[in-house]
């Protein structure tokens, strides 16, 4: 976290990458940080603006092929996200935003270069993955089961430098076996729902990474009821 005691959340290119309620992830982190007493500053950066490099958490949403390719191109040219991650900032990306963190992704009938922040490649799957997803989170992260809604046509293949976020019990995720990826403080997932509304512990992990402080418990009655209901709906034991 930056020297001033203010948590800066940067939402990258909502004009290009914002579908399926992705703003929800920003709202959830903002609320959970504020409840822990952090002063929060949310910065929305349009694709025609340069990326601030002093952010603590960078968020990327989903989008259609065209905007995804454009966003990757602009982020590569900007270089700010790369420098922020090297400095130790947190990045959390969803769906199209997740794919473009990798080596390359498939859009508009062609393979595009990504940002090389995660060791993974994405291509097109045989069918669209639409529906509830559930899985066991990688034990190294110490999180409860993952739940969310996926809606994507891509398949993602992890290289040795990327850890899968979860092993799937319901849904397709990356490839029918695992879902999402992380390395250091960069984490990506296909999940909407939004992902952090369904997985408040994941939101708190991002906060821990960004602040170095273990978030204090808060009243999570409603998110917990939502999680129980969604996990039960897909027969998660």
């Amino acid at each position, binding site marked *: 976290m930056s020297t001033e005691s203010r948590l800066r959340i940067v939402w990258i290119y909502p004009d290009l990458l914002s579908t399926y309620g992705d703003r*929800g992830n920003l709202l959830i982190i903002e609320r959970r940080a504020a409840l822990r007493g952090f002063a929060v500053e949310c910065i929305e950066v349009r694709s025609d603006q340069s990326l601030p490099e002093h952010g603590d958490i960078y968020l990327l949403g989903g989008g259609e092929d065209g905007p995804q390719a454009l966003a990757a191109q602009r982020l590569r040219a900007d270089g700010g996200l790369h420098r922020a991650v090297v400095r130790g900032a947190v990045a959390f990306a969803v769906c199209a935003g997740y794919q473009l963190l990798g080596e390359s992704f498939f859009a508009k009938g062609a393979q595009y270069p990504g940002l090389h922040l995660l060791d993974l490649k994405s291509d097109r799957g045989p069918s669209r993955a639409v529906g509830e997803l559930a899985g066991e989170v990688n034990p190294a992260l110490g999180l409860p089961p993952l739940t969310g809604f996926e809606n994507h046509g891509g398949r993602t293949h992890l290289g040795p430098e990327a850890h899968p976020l979860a092993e799937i019990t319901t849904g397709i995720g990356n490839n029918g076996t695992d879902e999402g990826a992380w390395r250091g403080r960069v984490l990506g997932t296909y999940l909407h729902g939004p992902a952090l509304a369904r997985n408040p512990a994941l939101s708190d992990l991002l906060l821990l990474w960004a602040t170095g402080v273990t978030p204090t418990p808060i009243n999570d009655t409603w998110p917990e*009821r939502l999680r129980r209901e969604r996990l039960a709906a897909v027969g998660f034991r």
Partner: protein
Amino acid sequence: MTAKGLPLRSKLATSLSRSAAALSRAAGRGDGSVIGGRIGLIIDPELLANLAAGRDIALISGTNGKTTTTRLTTAAMSILGRVATNGLGANMPTGHASALAKAGTTRYAVLEVDEHYLDQVLTATRPRVVGLLNLSRDQLDRAKEVAMMADLWRTTIEAHPEVHIVANADDPMVTWAAATAKSVTWVAAGQRWHDDSWVCPECGARIERDGDRWWCNGCSLSRPTPQWAVASGGVIDPSGTYRDVRLQLPGRVNLANAATALAIATCFGAPIIHALPRLADVTSIAGRYATVVRDERTIRLLLAKNPAGWLEAFDMAEQAPTLLSINARDPDGLDTSWLYDVDFSPLRGRRVLITGDRAMDLAVRLEVNGVPFDHVTSFGQALAAVPPGWFEVIANYTAFQDIRAELDRVN
């Protein structure tokens, strides 16, 4: 066209389609308009074109408000003569064929058209006027992208220069789609939902807004000067005259629908002063806007099918206890993420109850949005929880049907 003038094949198709619809109704499977039309179209693919031939037709399309605007336009045009219409919202070609077959000979027809089918129906029915209301995201996990829909409309309209367009000047996507038309009447019908029109569909630059005005930063696309506008309690017609509009339907959005209906009706020669009073004939539509008195509570039902619809419903709702009900069954779309596209803060300061299959998703959303609420597990429990008086109910599609069933399928 008269039934006598129909080709033999179409006559047979029409008659079979009517009996199939009657059978379907008798079997208790809805109003039968879809199945009747489907059988008719299998027998004669040209049926819709043949049934449409010889009629003066208006088509009405858009993401929100098309059923209501179709009702209002039909009411306004009824002063000219008999009007065939698919008033129950069966808005695909089978529904159109069925509605025209059922109506028999009429001089006029006003048809609500699903936005995906505009090209097909326009080609088949050769309308005189097409009304375009708005475009926004709908059922996210299945609909085409908004810009893609605008592009489809634009191509369709360009291919039919003979059709007069009545279009919403406040919606950049609709404006861009309609801009290829030879003749357009612009209506300032408003746009409460801006999140699908920040990027110019022509050049990709950002759309800027200042009050009612909007313009593209990168090209010449901008808000056209409207001929019709909405004013407090009425509309302003192309001569600049204010017209008092008395509706049985709530909200500014329905005043805008009325302005569009009048704009369309006047294209067919309906005098405004005679058309105006007919608008008050439109009351509730398949339960929407219906009010029901139960246990000293006056319950009003508002349907909201997508984010733009929710914002409109908040605008219509009185400052009274409000029940929100959300499902995510097939007709609703299975993904509830759209809840985060809607700002629920207009509900702060009133009693809010939540229910439905996906009440927990709504609970988490409202908590983040800073809107206090209580969860109830049935409509009866909700009713018992609020004091006598006005009670607003806002629900998405299948949740709305569930509540309508509780109220004896109110129309």
